[in-house]
């Protein structure tokens, strides 16, 4: 028995090495490409953060409250948004909150831009979805920390590797939900449009996307929440934001800082969730 075990140990399959040499290959050959992404991304994210921080916090809070009122039209929620943002300022995490929010928004935008077309393509091609499904499962089951290592190798330290890791982690949600929405369009609706001579493109824009919209929007919400959870972990590769005080508190065993930063994250999460909730229940298809 121990002979077999010894043999197995001696003949280790160098999976890790293979992966490493793959990334080495990327760095050696495409360093310029990754650097360009890093520089562009950093410029965009930092610029946005700076711009938002340039606005006095109370003005920004009023603007966000206004947005909440516009989106959801309940004064209760707007009041809650207003008070909880004041609470964050009071805790002293306003800058970190803005940094995290910016990262979440950018990550969500990138996820939707890539995820929705992939989801639509998969809904139209069953073979593509059967290829995609194990990949999506993999993306969602690999511990999130693992993404940070290659992201850091390729994009250095800072906001961009955190953004990349976040996108990889969160993109599965919009892909899945877009696929679900588009592939559950009732056949009669498609046939009705076809019977009036709809082209594939018209079918997509006039039937499939409108029908799937509530599901796609659920994908946005999920994507935002997943991004937020990942953005915090992004602090490990040097992304600034609410994750930073958490990591610092962990390393120096500062319970008070941990509690406060954790509370700020919870507040942001609740805010985003409530803001994105759909006002109208989705209409059913029949």
């Amino acid at each position: 028995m121990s002979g077999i075990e010894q043999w197995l140990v001696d003949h280790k399959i160098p999976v890790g090495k293979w992966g490493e040499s793959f990334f080495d290959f990327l760095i050696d050959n495409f360093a310029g490409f990754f650097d360009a992404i890093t520089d562009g991304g950093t410029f965009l994210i930092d610029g946005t953060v700076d711009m938002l921080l340039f606005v006095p916090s109370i003005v920004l809070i009023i603007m966000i409250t206004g947005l909440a009122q516009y989106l959801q039209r309940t004064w209760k929620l707007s009041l809650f948004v207003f008070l909880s943002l004041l609470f964050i300022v009071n805790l002293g995490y306003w800058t970190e909150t803005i940094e995290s929010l910016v990262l979440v928004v950018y990550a969500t935008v990138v996820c939707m831009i890539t995820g929705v077309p992939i989801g639509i393509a998969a809904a139209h091609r069953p073979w593509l979805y059967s290829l995609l499904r194990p990949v999506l499962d993999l993306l969602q089951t690999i511990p999130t920390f693992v993404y940070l290592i290659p992201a850091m190798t390729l994009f250095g330290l800072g906001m961009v590797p955190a953004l990349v890791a976040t996108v990889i982690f969160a993109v599965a949600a919009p892909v899945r939900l877009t696929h679900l929405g588009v592939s559950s369009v009732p056949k009669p609706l498609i046939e009705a449009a076809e019977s009036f001579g709809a082209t594939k493109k018209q079918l997509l824009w006039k039937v499939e996307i409108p029908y799937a919209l509530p599901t796609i929007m659920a994908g946005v919400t999920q994507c935002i929440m997943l991004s937020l959870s990942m953005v915090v972990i992004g602090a490990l590769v040097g992304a600034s934001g609410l994750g930073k005080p958490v990591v610092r508190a962990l390393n120096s065993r500062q319970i008070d800082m941990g509690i406060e930063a954790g509370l700020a994250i919870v507040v942001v999460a609740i805010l985003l969730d409530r803001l994105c909730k759909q006002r109208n229940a989705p209409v059913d298809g029949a």
Partner: protein
Amino acid sequence: MTAVEFKNVDIVFGDNQQEAIPMVDAGKTREEILEKTGCVLGVADGSIKIEEGEICVLMGLSGSGKSTLLRAVNGLNKVTRGEVLVRDGDDLVDVASCDAKTLRHMRMERVSMVFQQFALLPWRTVSENVGLGLELKGMPKAEREAIVEQKLKMVSLDQWKDKYAHELSGGMQQRVGLARAFATDADILLMDEPFSALDPLIRDHLQDELLELQRNLKKTIVFVSHDLDEALKIGTHIAIMEGGRIVQYGEPEEIVLNPANEYVAEFVAHMNPLNVLRCASLMTPVSDLRKDGERIILDKYDAFKVALDSKGAVQKVTFEDKEELPVFSFGADHSLDDIPDCNIVTASPEITMKRAIELRQSTGNPVLLSEEGVLVGVVGDEEIYQGILRQSSIADAAE
């Protein structure tokens, strides 16, 4: 002029069509083909010619292939073999083999469709739904609105144009479906069990509305139904389908009087004959009536007697040899209220059994049938009873 023609249409679903086609030719049943090849036979050797302005009803039980055949007309189902010719101006286009561009043209301009489950887009208002076909054609909004408004008026839903489809009742939703189909002004209308999802009263109402609209529109309608009463009421021609094959094709009365096989007889047994049977097939012809000298005796009690002139027209009708009854000629546009009291009525042999019973009941006298002024027969109590009994004897035979 032919509007739609099916020429030896076979429709087979499944991957193994090469193997299935010879079995279809050999006349194998759907079950045999499924077992051997894994293919489902939709339609086998379907041939019908539908003239312009006709309402052709494809009728049969579920799974008989009627919807499959209908959906071949606008290419929703692919034809495995054969031709489906659809009129486009002076040409007949074979939609089974035409290219995508032609098919799209046919769908946008020539053929429109009404669906069983309405298939309205739930996130659109009624008028946006009606305008769908025009929108897909690329018609600008302002132009579209005028047409939509007019079509909604046609189905009397103009008050509802800004509601969402799901806010309407089933009957109203299907009227929206009708308006949507009318909007593109296609001459050929496909209706796939359009009224089956509605309750009987609404269904009856919509059938009447459709017939009323058709009187002015004169479209060519291919209508799928599983209900013979509906088929007989609406159809100018009926094709009865069983297991993917057309077992009988003809005018409504022909089907009722001469069911081609037991399957058809079963349908006929359960239908209501009143609106279908015409007096020409119920009446006792003049040649079979007894005579009293020159006069013809109408009933078995020798009460009613008719004297004819030299051409065979009704000259004088007497009751019990004493009283002379005034004769009223009942035309197509008369109503029962137009008949004066104590009259005997002459009518066309084309009137339905229902109309004959109404006339018999309203006058209390037998109904004389004359064609171009010549007496051809009579329908009295005896003939009416026989008409009803004949129906129930078909029912007995079918059971």
